[in-house]
């Protein structure tokens, strides 16, 4: 195990019991993600990528194999210990943002720190503000989540995933609900965050989005079938400029 690796999984299996049948969602996966990487986890539906993401996110545990997160084997941890790992080491971004409704951006971003007894209310507020500034929402901190556009909501969600200084951000189809321009804007933000050294695991099934990452791993039927460095890496900011100046103009 290299000193630089954030995630290291070895021969990972995950089996589900559905009725009398055993579904083998993951069939021996080996994967290492190093610090500073920006990895797209790809595959069609049923390929096992969501199952892998759940395990990487410590929301689920593997049936077989080992998973080291930031040097710690999480396979044997209990429910509460996993919750603590999620709280301190991981950041999540979901397809449907999952913000608290009728709650300000700031309060939404503060949420993970509320579950961390070591962070007092002053520090919590400071870090939430920093995170919102980092995603470009300095002027919208007090806005309620339901008063924001989809792109802005996803930015709030990204700020929420950053606020606890995680070792890796795990995004699940984070651009799935957004139009092309907004998707590119979100990808530009991810690229910017990655430039600052933040490690990102990005699940998607769109090749167009995956080309903005540095490395693509492709799953099929529970196995990793392709692992490649993105050669012709796209620049999301440039892609926005390349869009035709048509009806996307009104979105900001």
């Amino acid at each position, binding site marked *: 195990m290299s000193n630089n690796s954030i995630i290291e999984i070895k021969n990972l299996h995950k089996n589900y019991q559905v009725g009398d049948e055993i579904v083998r969602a993951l069939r021996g996966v080996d994967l290492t993600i190093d610090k500073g990487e920006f990895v797209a986890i790809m595959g069609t539906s049923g390929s096992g990528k969501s199952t892998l993401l*759940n395990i990487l*996110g410590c*929301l*689920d545990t593997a049936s077989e194999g080992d998973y080291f997160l930031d040097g710690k084997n999480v396979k044997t941890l209990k*429910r*509460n210990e996993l*919750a*603590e790992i*999620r*709280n*301190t080491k991981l950041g*999540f971004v*979901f397809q449907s943002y*999952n913000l*608290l*409704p*009728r*709650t300000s951006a700031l*309060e939404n971003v503060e*949420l*993970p720190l*509320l*579950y*961390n*007894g070591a962070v007092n209310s002053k520090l919590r507020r400071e870090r939430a503000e920093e995170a919102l500034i980092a995603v470009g929402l300095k002027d919208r901190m007090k806005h309620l989540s339901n008063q924001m556009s989809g792109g802005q909501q996803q930015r709030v969600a990204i700020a*929420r995933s950053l606020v*606890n200084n995680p070792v890796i951000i795990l995004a699940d189809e984070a651009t799935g609900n957004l139009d092309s321009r907004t998707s590119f804007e979100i990808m530009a933000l991810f690229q910017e965050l990655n430039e600052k050294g933040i490690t990102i695991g990005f699940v998607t099934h769109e090749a167009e989005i995956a080309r903005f990452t540095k490395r693509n791993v492709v799953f099929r039927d529970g196995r990793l079938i392709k692992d490649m460095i993105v050669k012709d890496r796209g620049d999301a900011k440039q892609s926005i400029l390349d869009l035709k100046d048509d009806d996307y103009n009104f979105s900001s």
Partner: protein
Amino acid sequence: MKIINLLKIAISAIRRNKLRSFLTMLGIVIGVGAVITMLAIGQGSNESIKSSIASMGTNLINVMPASRNRGGVQQGRTSSQTLKEKDVAYLSKNCTMVTAISPEMNTSGQVVSGSNNWPTSINGGNEEYITIKKYEISSGRFYTAKEIKTAAKVCVLGQTIVDNIFPDGTDPIGQTVRFEKIPFKVIGVFKEKGDNTFGDDQDDVILAPYSTIMKRITRETYLRAIVFSAKSEDKITETSAEIEELLRSSHGLKDAEDNDFEIRTQEELISNFGSISELLVVLLGSISAISLLVGGIGIMNIMYVSVTERTREIGLRLAIGGKGKDILWQFLIEAMLLSVFGGIIGVLLGYLASFIVEHVMNWPVLITESSVVMSFMVCTFIGVFFGWYPARKASALDPIVALRHE
């Protein structure tokens, strides 16, 4: 997780759903309001019964002849002839624990003045009778020991009698009224006392020397009752025991023989009526407690819906590091806050409703601290009790399933 953070989370969740939170609270508000108002009404009437009995004198002791059984037939008290004037003399000489003692006579009939008449009863006692029965003279005077000795035909009237036989407003003092054809000179009028607890008009009364009634009206040699004022209200029991012992020896009763008299104290009356009005309190209290229970079930209902509706939120909280017990506490505190807030509003409502009952309907009300504290504690308990099941359901959710919930 810090309790202050949990409180923040719960309060913001309540504020996010103002209308629903208000409707949930409404059940508790009405329940607590009803409990406080009903208990106030019940305790108010209880207290007013007790105080009106006390206004008749809590240190009053009545001794009446025991009803007798003659050939298997129970005779009325008035036909017993066990209490005599010599008992009064013996008791006033030997009884150490009373301040006043008086024989009591009474008979009913028509009182007449000129062309006006009124059906009433005439009561007789000695000069101490007025203190024992707590009457006060408003004009004129009470009769004297000398008038008692001579069986003088004098009387003191209650205000009801004055109103009915002197309707034109003549000063009754010095006038002559007739009771059962015997003329009585009016020497005084009592201050108004009003109705007692049982609705009897305490001003519908004529008092005359007992000797006058005995000799001139009923022509009897025995007394209807002997009344006492005990020295101390706290020693009513000891005082009645002393009276009982003295009367038994005065009547020469053997150990095996039953008393040929009966001693009654106001305390017994208070405890009898007290138990009736306490029953009323319990009845009113339990009816309103049912509405509190229904309010609690309302909270459980809403919390249950809330957990289902907020499944994704719960999933998110679990995903970003919330532990099962954090979620459990969040929902439990939410339920408790709803019921405590509802309880506070309910207490205010209860005060308001009691105020209205007191001033608009003129019913006696009494809000006791214990009823407020009790309904408040019941409220909190309801919050915990009915919040527990939905909260546990929320805390046991699998984050992956919860996040995927539509």
